[in-house]
């Protein structure tokens, strides 16, 4: 019997400066999965890390490991961040709530930007990553496959992603509040994050005078420059590029800030104090927050932009309701399917045990009735079979449907085994099957 757990934090529970300390880039996520598997080899895990959330999904035996405290300790040890610094921002969920949360997340209903499709790809990547590390099995495999399918269903069957205000469009709106025209401006893109590329796409529509693409990987920078009709720029000369730039879009995977106040302040004079709009889409942040305090520097991070986007969400309540209905139905279906799967062997044992008891009693009765015909024997056998089936029908239906959906399958199973002494039966059957048994 397996238990589903989730431990995480997101944009609603933790500020950016906490989230960025616990964020995993792709490489770190792979390392974390390996470390997790090494430590908790009997459990399954998926690590979802985006700019808005860090979530660890785990399936383990009811009395197995990791426990929630061990999961907290794992995150703390991996990032070398004391647990006290983020513990209050964490949430934990169990069983059905885990399924409901994952389906809500993948449908973007838990995103800061309702209807954003990126989260679907991020969940898929997290699942693929866990699969590569052989960290998923009988529980998390079907859960994540179903989650991805739910995400697709919400995106295709609702209008959730139509008419939405995106982070990219908000960034452009902000830029328009600072600059009047862009044909004499230089846009500098640092890194090649997915959101940054979306923002860049919007900025290219403004026809900026110059577009500089700066990446640690020169080949990637070259490719991006070609795609956006820009000029590749070397990372080593970042200060020089920052002197020229009017708009900076940055989204590197760097674990530390690449633009610090001490680096940037001397550039102000060289820039002749021209206003600069810096859009920091990276988590952890690429630009030190104090850079935004400098005169004529307008620094916006992902939370600042998403806050504006989220204020437009209330206007799409119909789409949200449709999406929630889909998610709710899918959660019920999955939990019922999962419960049936979990209960299946126990129900089988229950049927076998009671039919066997009935057969024993039938045989004993038939011995006392020697004159009975074969046809009558058939009728009696059918009668006992039907009685057993009828007696078991209601409890088994309740077990399969779950009755109260919020009651853990483990609790039902435990009760079933106790009430009908199925454990003794299972142990006995195991002994029967044992090659050492007489």
């Amino acid at each position, binding site marked *: 019997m397996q238990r589903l757990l989730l431990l995480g934090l997101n944009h609603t529970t933790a500020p950016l400066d906490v989230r960025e300390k616990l964020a995993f880039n792709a490489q770190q996520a792979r390392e974390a999965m390996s470390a997790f598997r090494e430590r908790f080899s009997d459990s399954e895990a998926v690590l979802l890390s985006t700019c808005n959330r860090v979530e660890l999904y785990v399936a383990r035996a009811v009395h197995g490991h990791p426990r929630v405290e061990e999961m907290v300790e794992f995150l703390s040890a991996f990032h070398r961040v004391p647990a006290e610094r983020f513990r209050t921002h964490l949430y934990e969920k169990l069983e059905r709530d885990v399924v409901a949360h994952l389906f809500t997340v993948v449908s973007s209903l838990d995103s800061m930007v309702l209807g954003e499709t990126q989260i679907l790809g991020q969940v898929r990547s997290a699942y693929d990553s866990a699969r590569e590390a052989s960290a998923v099995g009988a529980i998390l495999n079907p859960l994540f496959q179903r989650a991805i399918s739910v995400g697709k269903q919400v995106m295709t069957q609702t209008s959730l992603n139509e008419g939405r205000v995106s982070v990219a469009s908000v960034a452009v709106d902000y830029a328009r509040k*600072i*600059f*009047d025209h862009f044909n004499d401006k230089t846009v500098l893109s640092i890194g090649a994050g997915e959101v940054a590329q979306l923002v860049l796409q919007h900025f290219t529509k403004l026809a900026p005078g110059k577009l500089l693409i700066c990446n640690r990987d020169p080949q990637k920078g070259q490719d991006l420059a070609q795609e956006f009709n820009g000029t590749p720029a070397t990372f080593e000369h970042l200060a020089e590029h920052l002197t020229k730039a009017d708009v900076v879009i940055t989204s590197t995977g760097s674990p530390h800030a690449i633009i610090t106040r001490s680096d940037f302040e001397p550039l102000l*004079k060289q820039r*002749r*104090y*021209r*206003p600069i709009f810096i859009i920091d889409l990276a988590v952890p942040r690429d630009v030190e927050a104090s850079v935004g305090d400098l005169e004529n520097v307008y620094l*916006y991070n992902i939370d600042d932009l998403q806050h*504006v986007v989220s204020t437009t969400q209330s206007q799409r309540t119909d789409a949200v309701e449709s999406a929630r209905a889909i998610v709710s139905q899918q959660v019920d279906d999955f939990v019922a399917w999962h419960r049936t799967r979990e209960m299946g062997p126990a129900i089988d044992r229950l049927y076998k045990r009671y039919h066997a008891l009935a057969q024993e009693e039938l045989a004993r009765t038939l011995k006392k009735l020697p004159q009975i015909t074969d046809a009558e024997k058939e009728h009696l056998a059918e009668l006992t079979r039907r009685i057993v089936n009828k007696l078991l029908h209601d409890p088994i239906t309740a077990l399969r449907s779950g009755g109260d959906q919020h009651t853990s399958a483990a609790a039902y199973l435990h009760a079933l085994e106790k009430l009908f002494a199925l454990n003794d039966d299972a142990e006995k059957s195991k002994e029967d099957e044992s090659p050492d048994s007489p």
Partner: protein
Amino acid sequence: MPTIGQLTLLVIAVAFFATSGAISLSRFWHERNGARIAAKACGWSGVVLGVIVLLWHNATRGSWLPLGDNFDTLIWLGLLLAVFSFYVQRTKPIIGLDWFTTPIVTLLLLAAAIFGRTQPHEYVSTTWSWVHRVSAYGGALAFFVAGAVGVLYLIVNHRLRDKKLAMAGPNLGSLERLEHVTFTSTTVGFALLTIGAITGFIQLVFKHEHTSMAKIVLTVGVWLVYALVLHSPINPSFRGRKTAMLSVLGVLLMIGVLVIVQLMPAGGSH
């Protein structure tokens, strides 16, 4: 001295401008096309009434030379500021500009009504004094625009820094546009003020005309403040917020000069 009829028309014009300003300001909370049209209609009605008052006044006094007395001059100043504000809003939309210019227009017209009635001054109609008036008042007009745009710059800058307010309320124009308008207005105003100051100085020294020391000090203050604003391309650390704040300070000093001029026995000099 203006007649009761002229003053009545002027007060109605003031009421139109005040209504226009109030309607326009209401758009800060709720943007409506109807309000925009109503504000514009009230504003233009005020302009038309102001022009009628000017024509009537000039016909009464028998002279068509602009800025012939303080009543005529303050109306000219108010109307030119209003028309210039409408022009800027039409060509380079800065939605909130009239929130700041309309109160100044209203005050200028009210000042015309009050000072024109209680402190009427016939201005000396020599070429020197006429050039002095035109350039000084023209400079003041340009500085009013620079000050109003400076306030808008400070609001937009504050909103952008606050971040949560950045998308609130109507679009007041980009910082770049506001900075450009401030700089252009200041450049024009500074040139006119300099001419005004030189012609005033010539009258003071060579024609031995008297003037108030406070007026001279404040005028020099305005001149220095705007010299600093114009200094920003050379010393760019002044650009942005500091320039906007200086523009507003300059306008406050300029208002002081105008008030002193109105309170002086012969309109500042004679």
